[in-house]
């Protein structure tokens, strides 16, 4: 048996991008493609298939008993067949239920099968929570490592180092155990030389961390870079990317995420945490047969894992579930809703028990204020929404332009250098400004915080009039000099963050963009809030303020403006709606603020949608050419299926297999000469009446196996897909029955079906291909890639940008 003809590398698609139905060439070498260790892996090691103890002559029973290893699995960079997976799961479930009545062992098996989903969710929650705790604690420590080291134990970060000692009210950061680098090296912390030394150490540590991060990513797991959410969206819609959710990607992503965040780059860890949680989900799926073998069930688990990831990132279980529903998942059955919630809750509980922030809070910027807001404040909130929308659209356009440049020009050939240059730029620009030197999470936490009498930071340096202080209630106050300094420093920080994030998101280190967007919004919101506050203080008599903001009343809360600004900017970039509002109010605990948050989120979404239709993740999906069929867009053109189907008029006729008149050699020739992923089976070439559809991979595996294991199969053996073998003279070689790999119910549409309906069918059922008939006879085929190209063409985009199948 000539194995070499079937041994093609799995990435041959680079040569045949123009070919409509091409896929990565078939490769029987599972060792290269797969990431998990399934059954017998060696080439030619098919000894462990069904009936190993039986005689090879009973050919009929073999194929009916159990499918061959490899039949029903998918190639890398292919789409799964949702219909087939779901029906397989239903068959399996039916079999287990019917067997459960036979013996106690089978009953236990059926009960454990039903229970396995919940056990899997529990494990995913535990693992995701533990990893998130590890990431939080390590990131905190390493961020502070850029500034100094703790003498009481090098593993303590700044806050924990000064935990035991008494700090002063005004200078809460200084304590004898924490030494900055200049203090350690020079012996004192004051003076120009100490400042320069601190500056230098900061930049040096930042460069070291980012260099380590990019080297680890490049060396061990190149799939660990970027945010991960666009690729996870594509995977959840049915695409297969082997290795993207594997062990090495998990380890490297966890480790390098900490390094990237600690190096002071303008990125966050929420998107990568979703990727980490999905990796956990994928790895733990291998413990349960039900999820290991079925790709559709596995994607249900991945949806739940994504919810757990957002839950630990923000401390928002409900927000996590809604994020998974709205942004990440493609199909979200109701059963997944309850399980996602369970996984998110377990993950949040695990993180809380590890207690990374020392105060039983899940997120660094958990604020709890309950100041009322006035209806007139909706105007500035809507202004913030407009700002968020504008910034979101601007960011998406510029980031995509920069990423496109990275893909196509020489910039993309120096990833390590690019990371180092951006880190150096960020560190050099960030150190002088106090608000960019601190980590972005701390900045957001400070901006969300409402100034009270207990605060002594620069931002809260208001002019205090002690005589009018009645207990705990603060009146509105004039801004002191500290506030003015903070304002222009924050404005500079805003400018820097707006521009540097464009170049940071998409680099070859794990990078998220929730935190940078929230930071931009929070700074803008705080600036507006302080401006409003001072306006109200100095102009009580104006008509707009006189009604509700009398002298001495604390009516405007800049912290709330910061929150609303953060929500607006995040909504403008990601176009989240419900999940954003729920995450924000789970972060703050303030149900009173739902209306301002909703107003800002809606305004920013409307403004951003008016400028550009796609959110950042959809834009990245389109940039990379993933075969993602957008579920939310309407298809509004009047084309028919015969305009889209293949073969076109100028193409050679459709390659079909007849049901009982082709030999093994004929089929092998067809498979070798074409690169289609499947072939329709017809009754005969003259009648072209449809019997079913057979996949290329299944054909190859079955024929290979038959040549080895079955007696009498030679090149001139007839292959038949019918129930009973066709009548042939007794001297002919024994025939090969392949009915078991034939899909007897392929989806068909007529050639006059409008494309609207066809696109709807593809979306709702998750099809890979659909056959087109005319007057009952097979005419052509439409694949998912054809549909995507057609949509792209009609939207005046480049149809050749759809790269994968």
């Amino acid at each position, binding site marked *: 048996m000539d194995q070499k003809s079937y041994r093609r590398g799995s990435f041959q698609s680079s040569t045949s991008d123009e070919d409509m139905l091409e896929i990565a060439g078939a490769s029987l070498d599972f060792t290269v493609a797969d990431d998990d260790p399934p059954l017998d892996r060696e080439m030619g090691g098919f000894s462990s298939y069904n009936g190993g103890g039986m005689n090879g002559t009973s050919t009929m029973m073999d194929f009916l008993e159990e499918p061959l290893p490899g039949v029903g699995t998918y190639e890398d960079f292919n789409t799964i067949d949702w219909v087939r997976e779901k029906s397989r799961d239903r068959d399996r479930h039916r079999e287990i239920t019917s067997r459960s009545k036979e013996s106690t062992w089978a009953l236990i098996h059926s009960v454990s099968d039903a229970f396995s989903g919940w056990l899997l969710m529990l494990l995913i929650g535990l693992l995701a929570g533990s990893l998130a705790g*590890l990431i939080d604690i390590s990131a905190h420590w390493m961020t502070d490592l850029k500034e100094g080291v703790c003498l009481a134990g090098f593993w303590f970060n700044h806050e924990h180092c000064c935990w035991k000692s008494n700090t002063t009210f005004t200078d809460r950061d200084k304590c004898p155990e924490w030494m900055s680098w200049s203090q350690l090296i020079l012996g004192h912390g004051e003076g120009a030389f100490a400042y320069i030394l601190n500056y230098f150490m900061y930049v040096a540590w930042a460069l070291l961390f980012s260099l380590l991060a990019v080297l680890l990513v*490049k060396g061990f797991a190149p799939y660990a*870079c970027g945010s991960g959410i666009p690729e996870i969206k594509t995977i959840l819609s049915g695409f297969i990317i082997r290795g993207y959710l594997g062990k090495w990607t998990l*380890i490297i992503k966890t*480790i390098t995420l900490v390094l990237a965040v600690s190096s002071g780059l303008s990125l966050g860890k929420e998107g990568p945490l979703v990727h980490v949680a999905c990796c956990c989900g994928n790895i733990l799926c291998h413990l349960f047969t039900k999820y290991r073998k079925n790709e559709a069930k596995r994607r249900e688990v991945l949806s739940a894992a994504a919810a757990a990831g957002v839950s630990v990132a923000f401390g928002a279980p409900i927000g996590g579930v809604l994020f998974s529903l709205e942004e990440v998942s493609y199909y979200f059955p109701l059963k997944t809703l309850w399980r996602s919630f369970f996984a998110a809750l377990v993950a949040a509980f695990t993180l809380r028990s590890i207690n990374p922030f020392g*105060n039983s809070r899940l997120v660094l910027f958990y604020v709890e204020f309950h100041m009322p807001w006035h209806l007139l404040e909706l105007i500035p909130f809507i202004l913030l929404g407009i700002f968020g929308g504008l910034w979101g659209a601007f960011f998406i356009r510029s980031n995509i332009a920069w990423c496109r440049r990275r893909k196509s020009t020489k910039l993309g050939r120096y990833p390590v250098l690019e990371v180092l240059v951006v880190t150096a730029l960020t560190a050099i620009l960030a150190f002088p400004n106090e608000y960019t030197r601190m980590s972005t999470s701390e900045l957001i936490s400070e901006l969300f915080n409402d100034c009270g009498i207990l605060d002594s930071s620069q931002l809260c340096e208001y002019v205090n009039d002690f005589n009018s202080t009645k207990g705990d209630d603060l009146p509105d106050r004039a801004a002191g000099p500290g506030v003015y300094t903070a304002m222009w420093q924050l404005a500079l920080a805003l400018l820097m963050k707006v521009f540097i994030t464009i170049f940071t998101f998409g680099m070859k280190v794990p990078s998220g963009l929730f935190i940078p967007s929230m930071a931009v919004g929070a700074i803008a919101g705080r600036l507006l809030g302080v401006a409003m506050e001072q306006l109200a203080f100095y102009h009580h008599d104006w008509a707009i303020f006189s009604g509700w903001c009398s002298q001495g009343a604390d009516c405007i809360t800049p912290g709330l403006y910061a929150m609303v600004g953060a929500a607006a900017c995040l909504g403008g970039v990601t176009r989240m709606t419900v999940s954003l509002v729920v995450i924000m109010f789970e972060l703050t605990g303030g149900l009173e603020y739902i209306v301002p948050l909703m107003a800002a989120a809606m305004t920013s979404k409307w403004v951003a949608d008016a400028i550009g239709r796609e959110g950042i993740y959809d834009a990245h999906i389109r940039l990379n050419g993933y075969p993602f069929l957008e579920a939310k867009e309407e298809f509004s053109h009047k084309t028919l299926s015969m305009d889209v189907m293949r073969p076109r008029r100028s193409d050679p006729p459709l390659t079909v297999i007849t049901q009982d008149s082709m030999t093994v050699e004929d089929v092998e020739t067809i498979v070798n000469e074409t690169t289609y992923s499947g072939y329709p089976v017809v009754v005969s070439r003259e009648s072209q009446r449809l019997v079913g559809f057979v996949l290329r991979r299944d054909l190859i595996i079955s024929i290979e196996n038959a040549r080895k294991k079955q007696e009498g199969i030679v090149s001139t053996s007839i292959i038949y897909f019918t129930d009973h073998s066709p009548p042939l003279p007794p001297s002919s070689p024994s025939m090969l029955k392949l009915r078991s790999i034939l899909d007897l119910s392929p989806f068909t549409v007529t050639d006059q079906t409008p494309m609207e309906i066809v696109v709807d069918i593809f979306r709702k059922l998750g099809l890979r291909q659909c056959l087109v008939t005319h007057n009952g006879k097979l005419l052509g085929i439409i694949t998912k890639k054809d549909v995507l190209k057609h949509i792209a063409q009609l939207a005046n985009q480049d149809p050749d940008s759809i790269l994968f199948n």
Partner: protein
Amino acid sequence: CAFLFPQASRMFAQCLQRCVSSVVLMALLCCLLSPPAEASKSSEDIRCKCICPPYRNVSGHIYNRNVSQKDCTCLHVVQPMPVPGSDVEAYCLLCECRYEERSTTTIKVIIIIYLSVVGALLLYMAFLVLVDPLIRKPDAYSQPLHNEEENEDARSLAASPAVPGARPNTVLERVEGAQQRWKRQVQEQRKTVFDRHKMLS
């Protein structure tokens, strides 16, 4: 019944493999979760922090004491009291006292785990880059694996040291095979992401 045995033995072998990996995973989870569980409340790890703002002519101050949660009030922690007896109540109303807990064991364990993993990965990378080529020099088949410009299809598959059909029997050979497979996988991923820019922009 007779035909169940080969299947059963195969399933047992897979089950064993999976069980081993799941046991390792459970051990890792327990390792991560046990530090907080076993951390008893040593005096190092609890504190009551009271922040008192400036009041009349008394400047603001922060007080730290390790008392239990029920004793975490202004009267127990703020000592010596800076204001005379009549003003104590008014002063304490302004102060905010919070009980905080942490686990130094958790922090220490996690940081040490993290640093050791990073160190191990760096050592492994150094080994792969520096030592491995020297060991493999006599084996001419593995050279193409390191050369990324080569056409990966024919060479890498033909050059794989695992001869099809011959099962790697010893543990060392199996580890070798797994490592070669993994290296090829990483190389493919690197090509897709870094060279051809097909994924992840």
